Protein backbone atom coordinates (compact mmCIF):
# COMPACT_ATOMS: atom_id res chain seq x y z
CA UNK A 1 0.00 0.00 0.00
CA UNK A 2 2.82 2.37 0.87
CA UNK A 3 4.50 1.75 -2.46
CA UNK A 4 1.23 2.25 -4.32
CA UNK A 5 0.65 5.57 -2.59
CA UNK A 6 4.18 6.64 -3.38
CA UNK A 7 3.79 5.81 -7.07
CA UNK A 8 0.48 7.65 -7.23
CA UNK A 9 2.16 10.68 -5.67
CA UNK A 10 4.99 10.57 -8.21
CA UNK A 11 2.52 10.29 -11.08
CA UNK A 12 0.66 13.30 -9.77
CA UNK A 13 3.85 15.34 -9.43
CA UNK A 14 4.83 14.48 -12.99
CA UNK A 15 1.41 15.30 -14.39
CA UNK A 16 1.27 18.80 -12.89
CA UNK A 17 4.10 20.44 -14.91
CA UNK A 18 2.30 19.47 -18.12
CA UNK A 19 -0.61 21.78 -17.29
CA UNK A 20 1.12 25.19 -17.47
CA UNK A 21 2.58 24.09 -20.81
CA UNK A 22 -0.78 23.72 -22.44
CA UNK A 23 -2.04 26.92 -20.82
CA UNK A 24 0.90 28.74 -22.44
CA UNK A 25 -0.46 27.95 -25.89
CA UNK A 26 -2.79 30.89 -25.38
CA UNK A 27 -1.29 34.28 -26.11
CA UNK A 28 -1.13 36.51 -23.09
CA UNK A 29 -2.74 39.75 -24.29
CA UNK A 30 -1.13 41.61 -21.39
CA UNK A 31 2.35 40.84 -22.67
CA UNK A 32 3.73 44.37 -23.27
CA UNK A 33 5.46 43.30 -26.48
CA UNK A 34 2.28 41.89 -27.97
CA UNK A 35 0.24 44.84 -26.66
CA UNK A 36 2.56 47.20 -28.55
CA UNK A 37 1.29 45.59 -31.75
CA UNK A 38 -2.33 44.86 -30.90
CA UNK A 39 -3.00 48.05 -28.89
CA UNK A 40 -5.10 45.96 -26.55
CA UNK A 41 -7.22 44.22 -29.19
CA UNK A 42 -7.99 40.56 -28.48
CA UNK A 43 -5.71 37.96 -30.03
CA UNK A 44 -7.45 34.72 -30.98
CA UNK A 45 -5.73 31.42 -31.62
CA UNK A 46 -6.15 30.03 -35.13
CA UNK A 47 -5.73 30.91 -38.82
CA UNK A 48 -1.97 31.29 -38.30
CA UNK A 49 0.41 28.36 -38.63
CA UNK A 50 3.93 28.74 -37.25
CA UNK A 51 6.34 25.99 -38.24
CA UNK A 52 9.56 25.53 -36.31
CA UNK A 53 11.54 22.36 -35.62
CA UNK A 54 10.75 20.77 -32.24
CA UNK A 55 14.45 20.34 -31.62
CA UNK A 56 17.15 22.72 -32.86
CA UNK A 57 20.82 21.77 -32.46
CA UNK A 58 22.01 25.31 -32.94
CA UNK A 59 19.99 28.35 -31.88
CA UNK A 60 21.99 30.61 -34.17
CA UNK A 61 19.99 29.56 -37.20
CA UNK A 62 16.61 27.91 -36.87
CA UNK A 63 14.39 27.60 -39.97
CA UNK A 64 10.99 29.23 -39.47
CA UNK A 65 7.90 29.32 -41.65
CA UNK A 66 4.73 31.22 -40.85
CA UNK A 67 1.59 31.11 -42.95
CA UNK A 68 -1.91 32.52 -42.52
CA UNK A 69 -5.18 31.22 -43.96
CA UNK A 70 -6.39 34.09 -46.07
CA UNK A 71 -7.76 34.63 -49.59
CA UNK A 72 -5.40 37.64 -49.88
CA UNK A 73 -7.88 39.86 -51.71
CA UNK A 74 -8.32 43.62 -51.44
CA UNK A 75 -11.20 43.09 -49.02
CA UNK A 76 -9.68 40.31 -46.92
CA UNK A 77 -5.93 40.04 -46.57
CA UNK A 78 -3.14 39.81 -44.04
CA UNK A 79 -1.64 43.18 -43.19
CA UNK A 80 1.28 42.03 -41.11
CA UNK A 81 2.80 39.12 -39.24
CA UNK A 82 4.82 39.67 -36.07
CA UNK A 83 7.17 37.21 -34.40
CA UNK A 84 7.75 37.20 -30.64
CA UNK A 85 10.29 35.33 -28.61
CA UNK A 86 9.85 34.37 -24.98
CA UNK A 87 13.52 34.25 -24.00
CA UNK A 88 15.54 36.28 -26.48
CA UNK A 89 17.06 39.54 -25.17
CA UNK A 90 15.07 41.23 -27.96
CA UNK A 91 11.56 39.76 -27.73
CA UNK A 92 10.24 41.29 -30.94
CA UNK A 93 12.08 39.27 -33.54
CA UNK A 94 10.61 40.48 -36.80
CA UNK A 95 7.58 42.05 -38.44
CA UNK A 96 6.56 41.24 -41.98
CA UNK A 97 4.27 43.63 -43.83
CA UNK A 98 2.21 42.07 -46.59
CA UNK A 99 -0.74 43.18 -48.64
CA UNK A 100 -3.28 41.93 -51.14
CA UNK A 101 -0.51 41.78 -53.76
CA UNK A 102 1.31 39.07 -51.83
CA UNK A 103 -1.05 36.43 -53.22
CA UNK A 104 -0.17 34.02 -50.46
CA UNK A 105 0.36 34.88 -46.80
CA UNK A 106 3.48 32.91 -46.14
CA UNK A 107 6.97 33.98 -45.05
CA UNK A 108 10.01 31.82 -44.33
CA UNK A 109 13.25 32.85 -42.69
CA UNK A 110 15.88 31.70 -40.24
CA UNK A 111 15.77 32.92 -36.65
CA UNK A 112 18.08 33.08 -33.65
CA UNK A 113 16.89 31.56 -30.40
CA UNK A 114 18.57 32.15 -27.04
CA UNK A 115 17.53 28.89 -25.45
CA UNK A 116 14.53 26.58 -25.45
CA UNK A 117 11.36 28.59 -25.62
CA UNK A 118 7.98 29.26 -27.10
CA UNK A 119 7.87 31.44 -30.20
CA UNK A 120 4.64 33.24 -31.03
CA UNK A 121 3.42 34.59 -34.35
CA UNK A 122 0.65 37.20 -34.37
CA UNK A 123 -1.05 38.15 -37.64
CA UNK A 124 -3.05 41.31 -38.21
CA UNK A 125 -5.80 40.96 -40.81
CA UNK A 126 -7.27 43.72 -42.96
CA UNK A 127 -10.43 43.72 -40.80
CA UNK A 128 -8.30 44.63 -37.79
CA UNK A 129 -8.53 41.25 -36.05
CA UNK A 130 -5.49 39.49 -34.59
CA UNK A 131 -4.78 35.76 -34.77
CA UNK A 132 -1.90 33.78 -33.41
CA UNK A 133 -0.07 30.50 -33.20
CA UNK A 134 2.94 29.46 -31.19
CA UNK A 135 5.51 26.72 -31.33
CA UNK A 136 7.88 25.35 -28.71
CA UNK A 137 11.48 24.78 -29.69
CA UNK A 138 14.01 22.82 -27.68
CA UNK A 139 17.39 24.44 -28.33
CA UNK A 140 20.57 22.47 -27.56
CA UNK A 141 23.05 25.28 -28.21
CA UNK A 142 21.74 28.78 -27.58
CA UNK A 143 22.42 31.82 -29.68
CA UNK A 144 23.80 34.97 -28.01
CA UNK A 145 25.40 32.97 -25.19
CA UNK A 146 28.58 31.71 -26.84
CA UNK A 147 31.31 34.10 -27.87
CA UNK A 148 32.15 32.39 -31.13
Amino acid at each position, binding site marked *: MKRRAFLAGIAGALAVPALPGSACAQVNPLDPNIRAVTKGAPVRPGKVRLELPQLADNGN*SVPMKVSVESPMTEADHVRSIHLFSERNPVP*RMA*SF*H*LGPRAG*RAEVSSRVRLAGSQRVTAVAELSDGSFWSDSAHVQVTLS*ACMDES
Partner: protein
Amino acid sequence: MVARVQIPQQAKRGEVIEVRIVIQHSMETGFRHDDVGRLIKRNVINVLSCRYNGAEVFRADLSSGIAANPYLQFYTVADSSGEFEFSWVDDEGARGSERRSIAVSG
Protein backbone atom coordinates in the same frame (compact mmCIF):
# COMPACT_ATOMS: atom_id res chain seq x y z
CA MET B 1 26.85 43.71 -49.26
CA VAL B 2 26.43 40.72 -51.49
CA ALA B 3 22.95 39.35 -51.98
CA ARG B 4 21.40 36.54 -53.94
CA VAL B 5 17.89 36.91 -55.24
CA GLN B 6 15.79 34.25 -56.88
CA ILE B 7 12.61 35.04 -58.74
CA PRO B 8 11.25 33.34 -61.87
CA GLN B 9 12.28 35.10 -65.09
CA GLN B 10 8.91 34.41 -66.67
CA ALA B 11 5.46 34.03 -65.23
CA LYS B 12 1.84 33.92 -66.29
CA ARG B 13 -0.36 36.85 -65.36
CA GLY B 14 -1.99 36.29 -62.00
CA GLU B 15 0.43 33.57 -60.99
CA VAL B 16 1.66 33.56 -57.40
CA ILE B 17 5.44 33.58 -57.59
CA GLU B 18 8.00 32.70 -54.97
CA VAL B 19 10.64 35.29 -54.10
CA ARG B 20 13.78 34.33 -52.22
CA ILE B 21 16.56 36.58 -51.03
CA VAL B 22 19.66 35.97 -48.94
CA ILE B 23 22.02 38.80 -47.97
CA GLN B 24 25.55 38.40 -46.74
CA HIS B 25 25.52 40.22 -43.40
CA SER B 26 26.76 39.28 -39.93
CA MET B 27 23.57 40.55 -38.19
CA GLU B 28 25.72 41.46 -35.18
CA THR B 29 23.51 41.09 -32.11
CA GLY B 30 25.19 43.63 -29.82
CA PHE B 31 25.49 40.97 -27.11
CA ARG B 32 28.83 39.49 -28.13
CA HIS B 33 32.29 40.56 -26.97
CA ASP B 34 35.50 40.81 -28.94
CA ASP B 35 38.86 39.25 -28.01
CA VAL B 36 39.65 41.92 -25.40
CA GLY B 37 36.19 41.85 -23.83
CA ARG B 38 34.65 44.92 -25.40
CA LEU B 39 31.05 44.70 -26.48
CA ILE B 40 30.63 44.53 -30.24
CA LYS B 41 28.10 47.14 -31.37
CA ARG B 42 24.78 45.94 -32.68
CA ASN B 43 24.61 46.05 -36.44
CA VAL B 44 21.67 44.32 -38.06
CA ILE B 45 19.75 44.88 -41.26
CA ASN B 46 16.71 46.55 -39.71
CA VAL B 47 14.53 46.94 -42.76
CA LEU B 48 14.22 45.23 -46.09
CA SER B 49 11.67 46.12 -48.71
CA CYS B 50 10.64 44.67 -52.03
CA ARG B 51 9.11 46.91 -54.68
CA TYR B 52 7.44 45.60 -57.79
CA ASN B 53 7.26 48.24 -60.54
CA GLY B 54 7.62 50.91 -57.89
CA ALA B 55 4.93 49.69 -55.50
CA GLU B 56 5.93 48.04 -52.26
CA VAL B 57 4.70 44.44 -52.09
CA PHE B 58 6.66 43.26 -49.05
CA ARG B 59 8.53 44.82 -46.16
CA ALA B 60 10.29 43.20 -43.24
CA ASP B 61 11.42 44.88 -40.02
CA LEU B 62 14.21 42.70 -38.72
CA SER B 63 16.12 42.54 -35.44
CA SER B 64 18.96 40.60 -33.88
CA GLY B 65 16.50 37.69 -33.66
CA ILE B 66 17.13 36.92 -37.32
CA ALA B 67 20.07 34.66 -38.13
CA ALA B 68 23.26 35.92 -39.76
CA ASN B 69 23.08 36.14 -43.55
CA PRO B 70 19.34 36.81 -43.39
CA TYR B 71 17.21 34.70 -45.67
CA LEU B 72 13.64 35.55 -46.60
CA GLN B 73 11.14 33.74 -48.73
CA PHE B 74 7.79 35.27 -49.59
CA TYR B 75 5.23 35.43 -52.39
CA THR B 76 3.72 37.93 -54.73
CA VAL B 77 1.30 37.96 -57.65
CA ALA B 78 2.88 38.47 -61.06
CA ASP B 79 0.59 41.08 -62.59
CA SER B 80 2.77 42.84 -65.16
CA SER B 81 6.21 42.67 -66.73
CA GLY B 82 8.72 44.86 -65.04
CA GLU B 83 11.24 45.10 -62.31
CA PHE B 84 11.64 43.96 -58.74
CA GLU B 85 13.75 46.18 -56.57
CA PHE B 86 15.00 44.95 -53.22
CA SER B 87 16.58 47.41 -50.85
CA TRP B 88 17.78 47.18 -47.30
CA VAL B 89 19.65 49.21 -44.71
CA ASP B 90 21.58 48.25 -41.58
CA ASP B 91 22.12 50.02 -38.24
CA GLU B 92 25.28 51.71 -39.50
CA GLY B 93 23.37 53.14 -42.42
CA ALA B 94 24.93 50.88 -45.04
CA ARG B 95 22.49 50.35 -47.88
CA GLY B 96 22.20 47.60 -50.40
CA SER B 97 19.93 46.88 -53.30
CA GLU B 98 19.29 44.32 -56.01
CA ARG B 99 17.14 44.43 -59.12
CA ARG B 100 15.56 41.65 -61.11
CA SER B 101 13.29 41.83 -64.10
CA ILE B 102 10.37 39.59 -64.85
CA ALA B 103 8.45 38.94 -68.07
CA VAL B 104 4.75 38.34 -67.50
CA SER B 105 2.71 36.74 -70.29
CA GLY B 106 -0.98 36.08 -70.82
